[in-house]
């Protein structure tokens, strides 16, 4: 049985904060939950399924959060695959709703790496030494930026991709961010600005990297009967896919991402193709992340991502594929170092016609929100969500 249309996103709310030194992480989660439920026209008593990931504070996944928010749930799920967890949660919530395990699913993300002074991309973070890879990786300094830098270096080597082509992705994000009053970086930048910004980890420059921000977001999903009773535009989940990719026992290939595997089941369930998409939210931890995912999702051929993103092709009102019209992780925010949920929230805004008028895509009826969690250079999960305005 296809799950196509088994759930609707009826609530979507993004926290406006980008720096929250006076809030707790649990408090940010609850504020996001309150915002998304109000957006849907539902209350906390309606929630009977809760979904969170590793950003939720507490040793036992969702238990601390359902206790803190005093939710009475029939179903919880805390699958943690980094920044892609929230696309995965949309798929899992749809499955749970279709199976009758819950009627109203709440997904939350929040964090405050900015207030906590994390050097997210440049300082390697040690983990549990018993993780099987840890002693074979941590000594070599795998920070986030150099794990993506290695992918960009190989992509340039195999396909002739250039720093200028990557820069166009940031340029497009900055064109959108100028209209987002909450965005951290609102200045429009040029290709020259990007390639002349200081090198962080070759070949990625400072402006190839996303921001570090506090904040969060939440989503509310429900079954079709309840969605139809609510006074909100109907955003139907029509395709989902998830897949991890890793080092494959040493058969390392950094030229593609897990989107190559998470995309096809999502396209098949949705019954549409990339050229049908009017708006794309694409995970943008770095410019190279966007370029590789666009190729792997089928928006262009493998190796032609550089040509595809150049010359403003991702700018709303200018190019063929408007992307990340809130400014994305590259300019607006990257709460908890996890950009998955904000990708879905902006896709919902576009489908409802509630994006900023300067970046709203006309007649936006089909959108994709793709997430990547973990690191492209070692292990990551790709997760794809395709949405339709009904």
């Amino acid at each position, binding site marked *: 049985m296809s799950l196509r249309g088994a759930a609707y996103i009826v609530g979507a709310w993004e926290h406006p904060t980008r720096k929250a030194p006076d809030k707790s992480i649990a408090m940010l989660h609850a504020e996001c939950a309150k915002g998304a439920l109000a957006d849907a026209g539902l209350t906390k008593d309606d929630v009977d399924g809760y979904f969170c990931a590793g950003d939720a504070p507490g040793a036992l996944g969702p238990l601390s959060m359902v206790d803190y928010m005093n939710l009475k749930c029939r179903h919880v799920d805390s699958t943690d695959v980094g920044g892609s967890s929230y696309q995965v949660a949309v798929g899992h919530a749809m499955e749970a709703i279709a199976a009758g395990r819950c009627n109203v699913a709440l997904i939350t993300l929040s964090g405050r790496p900015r207030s906590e002074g994390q050097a997210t991309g*440049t300082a*390697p973070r*040690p*983990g549990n*030494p*018993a993780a*099987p*890879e*840890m*002693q*074979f*990786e*941590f*000594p*070599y*300094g*795998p*920070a986030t*930026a*150099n*794990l993506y*830098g*290695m*992918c*960009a*270096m*190989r992509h340039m*080597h195999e396909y002739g991709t250039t720093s200028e082509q990557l820069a166009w992705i940031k340029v497009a994000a900055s064109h959108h961010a100028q209209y987002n009053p909450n965005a951290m970086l609102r200045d429009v930048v040029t290709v020259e600005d990007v390639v002349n910004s*200081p*090198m*962080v*980890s*070759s*070949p*990625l420059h400072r402006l190839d990297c996303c921001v570090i921000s506090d904040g969060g977001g939440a989503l509310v999903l429900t079954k079709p009967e309840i969605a139809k009773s609510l006074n909100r535009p109907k955003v139907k989940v029509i395709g989902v896919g998830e897949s991890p990719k890793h*080092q*494959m*026992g*040493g*058969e*390392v290939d*950094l030229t593609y991402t897990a989107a190559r595997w998470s995309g096809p089941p999502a396209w098949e369930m949705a019954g549409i193709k990339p050229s049908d998409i009017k708006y794309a939210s694409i995970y943008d931890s770095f410019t190279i992340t966007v370029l590789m995912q666009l190729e792997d999702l089928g928006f262009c051929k493998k190796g032609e991502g550089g040509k595809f993103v150049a010359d403003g092709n991702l700018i709303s009102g200018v190019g063929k594929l408007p992307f990340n019209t809130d400014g994305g992780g590259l300019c607006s925010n990257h709460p908890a170092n996890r950009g998955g949920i904000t990708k879905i929230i902006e896709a919902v805004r576009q489908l409802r016609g509630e994006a900023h008028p300067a970046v709203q895509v006309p007649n936006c009826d089909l959108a994709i929100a793709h997430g990547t969690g973990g690191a492209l250079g*070692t292990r990551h999960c790709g997760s794809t969500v395709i949405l339709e305005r009904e």
Partner: protein
Amino acid sequence: MAYVARKIPFVGTVDTNPETKPFFEGAAAGKLMIRRCTSCKKAHWYPRALCPFCFGDCDWEQASGKAKIYTFSVMERANPPYAIGYVTLAEGPSVLTNFVDCDFKALKIGQDVKVAFIQTEGEGPSLPFFTPA
């Protein structure tokens, strides 16, 4: 630019994972030990007891230490900067490493490199690094 070595951190001890202790014993003696499957005959990385291709049992063997650069990235924000990368061993698998004792500006994908062992900080175990051949 003159090469400046960085301190190499290590987490846990060589006893943390009994499965990989022979790797660290080899490294202490200047040998790059890898595992090869007795069933499908493929070598893999990082070392596991059960083959990641077929779950067959694996033996230890000493690798040649010869490899080619698959990719790299120089972390210029670090002090001192360092070069992370994957090298593809002559035996097959690709290995995450750092490039040492070299001019980072001259690193090239496809370049021949050879193994060199460096002790990690705080009297930690030695680990394999790579340098131009």
